[in-house]
């Protein structure tokens, strides 16, 4: 499975992209995140607070119960902050 990490997820995990072999017992987004949290302190730190974890499966926003398969492209990232007005209202 192709994994992508953006913004401070990328920095904490230490890479922006990796290929992983999905364990047989991982079949949903939620199970994937739990499995990733156990891969090391960087993953645990990035994925600690699920309220700021956003997921895209094959470039579509997805939720924890959505299915994942080895052929998918899965991206994990914090809430988006594009557009304008940088830095206001934090």
């Amino acid at each position, binding site marked *: 499975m192709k994994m992508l990490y953006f913004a*401070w997820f990328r920095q904490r995990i230490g890479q922006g992209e990796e290929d992983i072999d999905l364990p047989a017992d991982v079949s949903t987004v939620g199970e994937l995140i739990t499995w990733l949290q156990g891969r090391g302190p960087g993953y645990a730190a990035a994925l600690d607070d699920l309220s700021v974890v956003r997921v895209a499966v094959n470039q579509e926003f997805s939720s924890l119960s959505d299915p994942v398969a080895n052929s998918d492209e899965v991206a994990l990232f914090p809430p988006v902050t594009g557009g304008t007005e940088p*830095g206001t209202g934090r």
Partner: protein
Amino acid sequence: MIKVQHEDFDTGQELAALTDGRTDIGGVASFIGLVREMADDRQLSAMTLEHYPGMTEKMLGEVEAEARKRWPLDDCLIIHRYGRLEPGERIVMVAAASAHRKAALEACAFLIDWLKTKAPFWKLEESGDDDPEGGQWVRSKSSDDDAAARWSADPDDKNQGS
């Protein structure tokens, strides 16, 4: 029309391209977003926009399609830059052309509100301070969600809340 690019753009040329040679357009509403030097109490020296290539174009295309579904638009434009930008630089431009000014104005506000919560961009701000990670990541604003929500997003929207 969707453009995702690092390079700056020519606003006059982009606006003209929406209407050149046409005589059925009554109005063009546009919004241009710029980098501000002051972010809350901090002074920015620059910001860097990271994005998700491929998904960005896809999501902006969906925002444009939704605007065209909701209003009778003759044309529609979203340009979003990525990479390192300094205060005063243009970040984003949206524009909507319609026979009627109300449709153009409403669609323009919709485009900028929605892209802010749907397009996969993340801002890293550099200030004069000693930034541990080369800058500080901007946290999402609930006011952006509120602005997008007033267009009554579909309930399946996965990007709002957790």
